[in-house]
């Protein structure tokens, strides 16, 4: 029987992996996958906290409701985000972050 700590470690690893991908990888599509990984890490920890954090003997379902909202928001974000990346590719023929240098840093 896995404990709350097991789930939290798994979700922490997922979050760190996602953040690492965002920080280190150079392709915008891969970065976007890393961002999705971070959201799913949060989903996992929310469900785990909801399942194990018993308040007066009942599960607290608020967090599980939030998970549904996060899933649907992530879908909307992907729809808009991929559209933006596609139009960027059409205009610049690239999806690498190094090539985004029109605006000076």
């Amino acid at each position, binding site marked *: 029987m896995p404990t709350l700590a097991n789930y*939290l470690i798994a*979700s922490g690893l997922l*979050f760190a992996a*996602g*953040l690492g991908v*965002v920080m280190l990888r150079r392709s*915008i599509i891969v*970065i*976007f996958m890393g*961002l999705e990984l*971070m*959201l799913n*890490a*949060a*989903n996992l*920890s*929310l469900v*785990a*906290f*909801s399942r194990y*954090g018993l*308040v007066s003997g009942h599960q*607290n379902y*608020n*967090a599980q*409701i*939030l998970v549904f*909202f*996060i899933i649907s*928001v992530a879908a*909307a*974000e992907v729809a*808009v*985000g991929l559209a*933006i*990346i596609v*139009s*960027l590719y059409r*205009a*610049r023929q690239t999806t690498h972050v190094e090539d*985004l240098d*029109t*605006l000076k*840093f």
Partner: protein
Amino acid sequence: MNSLFLEIAVVLLGIVLLLVEAFSDRSNKDYLAYLGAAGLTGVLALSFLPQIGPLPMSSAAAFITSDIISVFFVRFLLIATIVTLLMIPGYRTVLVRYLPSERAGGGVGEFAILPLFVCAGLMWMVSAIDFIMIFVSLELATITLYVLVTYLRQNTASLEAGTKFLILGALSTGFIVYGISWIFGVTGTTNILALPDAISTLPESSLYALLFGIAMILVALSFKTGAFPFQFWIPDVYQGAPTPITSYLSVASKAAGFVVLIRFLLSLEALPLLANKLNAVITLLAALTLIFGNFAAIPQTNMKRLLGYSSVAHAGYLLMGVASLASLMAIPAIGFYFAGYLAMTMLAFVVLQAVSEATGGDEISRFNGLSKRSPFLAGAMLLSAASLAGIPFTAGFIGKLLIFEVALKQGHYGLVMLGCVTVAAGFYYYFKVLRAMYWQQPSEETAIPVSATTKWLILLLGAGILILGVYPEPLLAALR
């Protein structure tokens, strides 16, 4: 009037306008912006009817509130959206140039409609008292803003700005959700108003888990408010985004971020140990934001970038107010600062849009000799820069004075001294614009045309700056 009806009215207005746009054959889409602005003015009038908040035991009461902060900021957001919509007709030529379309005016109309949905999202955000509500309304506003920032599909600057905004925005979403999950895990609640009770009985051992969640949420909120450590997207996105959207980002979405930050910090004051730690963190963030915003603005040559750094600097002054939340006068001071900030920032962007429309660029050198080409626009920019820098008899001066006063009362002497130094730096970079307008020779002598809408917007915003600067009492009394 139930306070929820205002937001629902804004969403309905947006849906109706989308249908109107779909079934209308007119190729000139300016009427959509005017219809939207007129509709929002109606909603603004409705907001002055007697309000009843959600009934105490109703299901809505768990998610939204109708207190003095939310009532003020709902009106603030409506006014900011109205000004943005009225800027859009003046931006039509740029939109048409950078939008691929088979029929005349295709794809232009939605640019004036999408801000309504952002406005509804931000309005819910300033009334929200539950993390679920905050998250959903924040994402409604942010995802719509991704579309608006990237709107000029054939302009590489807009596309790049949109991509950077998308990635960093999604990153901050990841942080806020993970932070919420840890706060929920420690306290067992997603409701901000229930947090004080939950954390006052916490065992010492779970304090670090709570602090981890709080840190995550602070990082994510610093993205929205444009404060350190998540301020680095601001200059690029402000420079690349369409000008009306830049002004909207710098005023409305910053304000909503600050309201959530204030509500969150107020709920954490129940635990004195935690409150002291957080106060030190916010003080540090305010100092770093002030330093970064003001000193990085000095070498800028692009006006939109300059205003971007200036908006980071103003976030620093506002954070000084947030660091002094223990004072009763802090929230009126922050609200007043925002009212002045709306008038002066949007005035600067309206003038910038008119100038770059006529000269074809956003660089400060495009303002050369503006006093000869259009004394009216130059005068408006003078007033706006004076207020942004904080010269007496303007809204910016009173706003800074109030913020410094509450910070002094709370003993933030170092922060106030730093604030005085950065105000001096601010004088320098705002003066660069004035020097270009009044001392440099224009490259050509033709007068810059000012449309009637732009002229009225400038007159109203300028009047707002002066009235708030000379006669601040009524607004302050309403905020107390």
